[in-house]
């Protein structure tokens, strides 16, 4: 059992939690993830870590409430426990030796992009950041990104926060201004990463993306996280989660990620049905 030491809603559907997990905190590096089970009946789900503090033994996770497991998890409060929490998993993001990087975060993906931006900044890399959201209510980590970035743009689909448009509009603007990056790092919805990669391919900018497929064990045992990267099958859990953005088959990943959507809906219905019954 792992105790939740702090909990905060960053926006109506995004939750930040601190978990007491000293073994994981001692080793965690940006880009790595954990697998957790919210309770004894729960499914194992992967979540990329947003921060870690080895001294306090704390790991921070930031997640969007999208399905059954994140709904259950979001219902837990500080002081309560989650059943299982294991990691750190996956290869850390490659951050050494980069002079200038553009970090792009989309939605809750900003929670994973931020520790990478922060680490790069600490290493003396010139960091440009672009973060994008659907609207003002969903914006997270704006101040944090600003603090570690020498150039920064906030984008929103409807223009209610920052500039109106997509992260790709901002990135193209930066590139047309003459910015050249050792790497563009894009973390967010698969569709966003797909279009960032398409754009950077056009401009010949090396791009790294962070993959978020369905997983069970996170150690290479089940193979459910397999992706096609440059025509080769890769396991996101042990070969990634970071991959060359120009080689990933995004369409295949989107299809694989939708594999259990019906089951997920059925679970959620049962959960809300149950809650309604309790409410009466």
């Amino acid at each position, binding site marked *: 059992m792992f105790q939740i030491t702090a909990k905060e809603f960053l926006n109506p559907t995004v939750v930040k939690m601190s978990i007491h997990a000293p*073994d*994981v905190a001692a*080793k965690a590096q940006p880009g790595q993830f954990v697998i957790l*089970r919210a309770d004894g*009946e*729960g*499914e*194992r789900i992967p979540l990329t870590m947003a921060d870690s503090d080895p001294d306090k033994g704390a790991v921070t996770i930031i997640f969007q409430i999208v399905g*059954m*497991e994140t709904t259950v998890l979001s219902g837990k409060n500080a002081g309560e426990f989650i*059943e*299982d*929490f*294991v*990691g*750190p*998993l996956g290869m850390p993001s490659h951050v050494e030796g980069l002079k200038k990087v553009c970090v792009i975060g989309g939605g809750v993906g900003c929670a994973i992009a931020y520790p990478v931006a922060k680490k790069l900044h600490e290493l003396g890399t010139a960091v440009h950041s672009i973060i994008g959201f659907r609207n003002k209510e969903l914006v997270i980590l704006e101040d944090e990104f600003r603090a570690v970035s020498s150039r920064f743009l906030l984008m929103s689909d409807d223009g209610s926060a920052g500039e109106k448009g997509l992260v790709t509009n901002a990135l193209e603007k930066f590139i047309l201004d003459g910015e050249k990056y050792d790497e563009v790092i894009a973390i967010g919805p698969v569709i966003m990463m797909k279009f960032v990669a398409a754009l950077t391919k056009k401009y010949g900018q090396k791009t790294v993306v962070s993959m978020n497929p369905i997983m*069970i*064990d996170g*150690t*290479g*045992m*089940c*193979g*459910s996280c*397999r*992706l*096609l990267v440059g025509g080769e*099958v890769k396991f996101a859990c*042990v070969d990634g989660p970071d991959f060359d953005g120009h080689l990933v*088959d995004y369409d*295949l990943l989107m*299809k*694989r990620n*939708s*594999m*259990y959507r019906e*089951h*997920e809906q059925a*679970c959620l219905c*049962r959960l809300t049905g149950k809650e309604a019954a309790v409410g009466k």
Partner: protein
Amino acid sequence: MANKSLVKTPIPELLPDERIASFSEVALGYTPEQAKEEADRCLSCKKSPCVAGCPVGVQIPEFITKIQEGDIEGAADILKSKNLLPAICGRVCPQETQCEALCLRGKKGEPVGVGRLERFVADQTLDAPPPAKPPANGHKVAIVGSGPSGLTCAGELASKGYEVTIFEALHKAGGVLVYGIPEFRLPKSIVARELKTLEHLGVVIKTNSIVGRTLTVDELFAQGFEAVFIGSGAGLPSFLGIPGEAFNGVYSANEYLTRINLMKAYEKDSRTPVQRAKKVCVVGGGNVAMDAARCARRIGAEVTIVYRRTEKELPARLEEIHHAKEEGIVFKLLTNPLRIDADENGWVRNLRCQEMKLGEPDASGRARPIPVEGSEFDIETECVVMAIGNSPNPLISQTTRGLEVNRRGCLVLADEDKMLTTRAGVYAGGDAVTGAATVILAMGAGKTAACSIDEYIQGKQ
């Protein structure tokens, strides 16, 4: 009075129709009368060739004699002195190629049902008081993985007074016994009971601990463990490398079985999903393929096993093949998959195959399957489960200095008799060394390693 019957006393089983409607255990086990009847078939022959066939050296005629005498507790004492997990072994050991293969009664008729008797004794004494915890000897040993080899090694060492900690990557202990072997072959309550025995001996199991990630072998030594046993199994699934293997509805057997067994996806309200396909193809012919096929059958599918050689070469236990057939699973033999086709949304619709014929024996000694020109055909299916083997996970070897692996990723032993790896103080056994094999071989390796670790640590004094 000896029982001269040429055949084993039949073991009661669920009927095929009952089986495919549930995950209840298929073989129900002997009654005391049936056990006595079968025990009476044992001649207690002087040579006892059966014992040589047992990787952990169970004194078979001795424990069977106790059953003949009606002394089940006495039988259990003899059995458990060599085998700490008899209720598991009685169910999943391939006795037909081990102890029973050497039984004198088998020369004319069927051998004595050693496995069935082992299971009977173990089940009858599941509630027996646990063995007394031996006095601590002040030495600490770390075990990586809580599968058959790790549990056996842990039990042996704990019995000698070692302080043993098992590090398990998953959230539940048991390794392949809980994620791989299905409930209907090995009920998880049985595994839990056998784990209790180890806990009584003082063995501590730390779940959610991935050696190679959460902590390393070097850190285990730094924490004061004097020796490490690696029993991390063969967890890396193989795929065929044919087009279409990433489509929705293609599973490794590991994933399929883990969802169903460990995560209980067969239960109606399970939060872990598994595809409820109407038609499933399982590729492969081993025990894992049979397990996957029989699971698929139980969650409502019509199942076809696709295997590239003939029935004679199927590596699965005869009993498993027999059960699979009884349950209506179709065997498509001399058939090799070429490609998986999907619909526009990426869901599997078709397995394109070709017919094979057998040629000269290959390096493995089995006849090499050769494609028959122009024989391509399609099997309509929504789900394909790849059960074509596993290799060891590289997480430990990649993060541990001085550990050599061979071409197949298996840990290399510097001293095979001692199960010693290429690094001092680090021992290994089970599938991590051999590649995918059996529960009992892994247990034998765990036992040997425990003796070596004991010698090693005592020798340092």
